[in-house]
């Protein structure tokens, strides 16, 4: 039994062992470029191994560790995305951190450990294991946000993230304790049974409602949707850019996967309650994220607000409560992750020639087309894709979300979604305008390593050619969008 558990947990175990090994290696060996390089290779290798073990050792539909965790096709799908995304982050971080001279073994340790946390969060089927995974992930992220220790903005973002994150975790924990008090269970399926029984007996739901709302607030903090979004822009702006890329994609994917699972398993009989909450949150996130992003001048802040908008969009897929909805979220997340990572790779390749600083101000991108048409072209394709223009990939993401909304006859929600995507098209176009139409104001130096070039090319090819294999992807997703019902 134990051996089987270890086998099912192998991908996380690999990452834990490697991260501890990296920490040891960093302590006992000198801080020279060779050992950093070794650590970099080890972490990439461990992520690849972990991915490999998910494919070959882990069979779906199995609970393990006394029903603390579960691996079904749904969780495995998200685990795979998270691991791929993390590999990309580690690859693009390496050169960037070396350039800033802040590369340390701890960085890789923290990234790997937070990935473990996300993996545990995704596969949890018990509120204990869920909280464990969430906290493991969050604590690593707090440190990563403050990673650029000589930069006051980075420290600020770390502190801000920590205080607000700890507060939200506290709220979440309080909600979990209330749920435990109401249902006398920690297992998701037992909670579900208990709520079902209470619904049949027509009990008083006030206390359950309070607990439920508290838990949702905590989770909304983690995915940064209105009205729990305040931390996101500051934290994103202050953190080192490659870590911002991590923040905008991987932890959100984990938290969303968990949110889907949490709403659809323990609270599946509570649909009418969470439908209303998500409806309001989704509308406000879309409107707020798109309107506030218009006036941003920092690309990281802009992407922070646009990610609020995207999260609002994704909540539509959750709140319809159908399999189409989950499928549309999975498709959207894949497309979103690939485009955003490609975008960040482009941003990371731009530097100011005179003071060797990485460009973050959108105005500084002006006239990029004259400097390097490859990066400019990639920007255009990825931004048009994220803006949701056919025939690029982003359109299909939006199309599927709208399909799931209209299938459930949520017309007002889809009209809001469409209006906000027009507004968001405006600010994506603004970046394209600055890159293509404006005259250059300062000298940009573009240096793309082979790896980042490869990442950009893959993301562009994916964005352009998705139309040809979207059917195959949907077929793959089809079996992974079903949640296990015991």
């Amino acid at each position, binding site marked *: 039994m134990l051996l089987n558990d270890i086998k099912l947990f192998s991908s996380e175990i690999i990452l834990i062992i490697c991260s501890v090994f990296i920490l040891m290696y960093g302590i006992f060996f000198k801080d020279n470029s060779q050992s950093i390089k070794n650590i970099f290779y080890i972490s990439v290798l461990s992520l690849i191994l972990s991915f490999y073990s998910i494919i070959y050792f882990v069979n779906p539909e199995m609970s393990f560790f006394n029903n603390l965790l579960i691996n079904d096709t749904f969780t495995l799908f998200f685990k795979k995305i998270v691991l791929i995304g993390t590999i990309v982050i580690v690859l693009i971080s390496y050169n960037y951190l070396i350039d800033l001279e802040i590369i340390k073994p701890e960085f890789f340790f923290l990234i790997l450990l937070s990935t473990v946390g996300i993996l545990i969060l995704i596969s949890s089927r018990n509120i204990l294991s869920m909280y464990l995974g969430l906290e493991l992930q969050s604590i690593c992220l707090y440190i990563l946000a403050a990673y650029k220790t000589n930069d006051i903005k980075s420290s600020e973002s770390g502190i801000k993230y920590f205080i607000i994150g700890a507060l939200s975790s506290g709220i979440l924990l309080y909600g979990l304790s209330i749920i435990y008090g109401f249902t006398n269970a920690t297992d998701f399926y037992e909670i579900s049974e208990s709520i079902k029984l209470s619904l049949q007996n027509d009990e008083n739901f006030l206390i359950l409602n309070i607990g439920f709302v508290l838990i949702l607030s905590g989770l909304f903090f983690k995915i940064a949707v209105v009205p729990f979004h305040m931390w996101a822009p500051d934290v994103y702006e202050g953190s080192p850019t490659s870590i911002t890329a991590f923040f905008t994609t991987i932890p959100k994917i984990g938290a969303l996967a968990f949110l889907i699972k949490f709403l659809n398993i323990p609270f599946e009989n509570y649909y009418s309650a969470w439908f209303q909450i998500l409806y309001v949150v989704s509308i406000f996130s879309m409107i707020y994220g798109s309107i506030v992003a218009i006036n941003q001048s920092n690309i990281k802040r802009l992407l922070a607000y646009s990610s609020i908008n995207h999260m609002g969009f994704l909540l539509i897929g959750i709140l319809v409560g159908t399999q189409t909805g989950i499928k549309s979220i999975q498709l959207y997340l894949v497309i979103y992750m690939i485009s955003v990572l490609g975008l960040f790779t482009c941003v990371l390749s731009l530097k100011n020639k005179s003071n060797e600083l990485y460009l973050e101000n959108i105005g500084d991108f002006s006239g990029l087309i004259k400097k390097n048409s490859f990066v400019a072209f990639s920007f255009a394709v990825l931004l048009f894709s994220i803006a949701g223009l*056919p025939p690029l990939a982003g359109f299909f993401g939006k199309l599927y979300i709208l399909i799931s909304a209209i299938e459930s006859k949520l017309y007002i929600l889809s009209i809001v979604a469409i209006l906000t995507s027009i507004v968001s098209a405006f600010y994506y176009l603004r970046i394209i305008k600055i890159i293509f*139409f404006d005259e250059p104001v300062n000298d940009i130096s573009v240096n793309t390593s082979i790896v980042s070039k490869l990442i950009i090319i893959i993301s562009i090819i994916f964005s352009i050619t998705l139309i040809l294999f979207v059917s195959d992807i949907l077929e793959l997703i089809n079996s992974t969008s079903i949640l296990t019902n015991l």
Partner: protein
Amino acid sequence: MTNIPVLSLLIFFPLIGALVILFVNKNDQFYDNKVKEIGLWTSLIVFFLSLIVLYSFNSTDSQFQFIESYKLIDDLNIYYYLGIDGISLSFILLTTFLIPICIIISWNKIKKNVSYFVASFLLIECFLIGVFSSLDLFIFYIFFEGSLIPLFLIIGIWGGSNRVYASYKFFLFTIFGSLIMLLGILTLYFYTGTSNFTQLLKFDIPFILQVWLFLSFFASFAIKIPMWPFHTWLPDAHVEAPTAGSVILAGVLLKLGGYGLIRYSIPLFPLATDFFAPTIYILSLISIIYISLVALAQKNIKKLIAYSSVAHMGFVTIGIFSRNLEGLHGSVFQMISHGLISAALFLSAGLLIDKFNTKNINNFGGLFKQMPVFSIFFMIYCLGAISFPGTTGFISEFLVLIGAFKINFLIAFIASFGIILSACYILHLFKNVCFGTNNFKQVSDLNTREIIIFFIFIFFIIFLGIYPNSLITLYELSANKLIV
């Protein structure tokens, strides 16, 4: 012939050309010339391909021809479904005819990012042919919306001084309409379970749903046509766009709206069409009369022609919604004829602006002495624009007015004032440009290349004006299907 996927070839040949151009992309005089040659040859080959399609097209068959169908998205029942009838073929020919001309006329004018410019035009060609040949609503939408990207870049990168504002306005107006249409498409899809146009025709959609769907489609098409009061993006886009951009915008992109109404709105929502027809007559009449008056007050040559486009497209919508033989034939003819005439007018305007470096029509004058050849050509285009007998403009507006008379005397009466007003503003333009005295230094007349291009337009305008049946027989049967 039927085994070869001709339409896919037509759609994707320009795309391949664009990709090749983007790959040989280097900022170098030598490569720039190569890029232009590749672009020109690609578009010419596409033009000849479309001529082959025309040759093998059977105009005595009212069904869709050259059908291609592959499943694109399995679980959604979305097909890559292509097919053309006479109406679509006319527009495909117009597109493939105008694109090589656009590339030729910007041969020496575009200096920066030549490869992107040529690639944008090839991309536009790909999307436009795709729009005209798709028979699945989703594919239609993808092509329809995709054509925004290259034109946004064309206006924004190579446009005039206020280009950013114009490109944004163009983009946001159009995407607003199209996204609302997407909602309509999705609703229709979930009501019927298919997005295939030929299957959709078999469904009886309830009246209330038809009304909503019609409005959502109309939002997109009315902005594209453009119809008063949704027209405000057009003058800005035209003024700022480079000449080739104006030509393709006036020549083909505006026709997407009319084509969409004919292809989708009328057959799919017949009850709603009847319901909304009076409203649309009123909007069209306002387009014709009010916009003609606005055009009369313009000093900017490109703006004047842009407003005249809006006024002329008012005849198209009247013709489409009259739903009788003459009206429908007339409006398709008007779209093709306007595609030729307005393209030619923008060509002339672009030439004048390049030569004299001013857009104000009061600054011109006396061109008959300086550029006699040009003035003769320009005169014939102007006569076409005021629907002078013997040009295409006469045939189309005559047919539309007959169609309108059959519906309501008053509509035709008011619309016919549009022709008089068009004579006012176009002759005002012509007088200011070609007559009077000038205070310019000596300028050269047209060179051989320009004469050839200008002559091609004249040829088609007069040929189709004298022998309209050559075009009408092409789309006659397809249009007749729409009459109830």
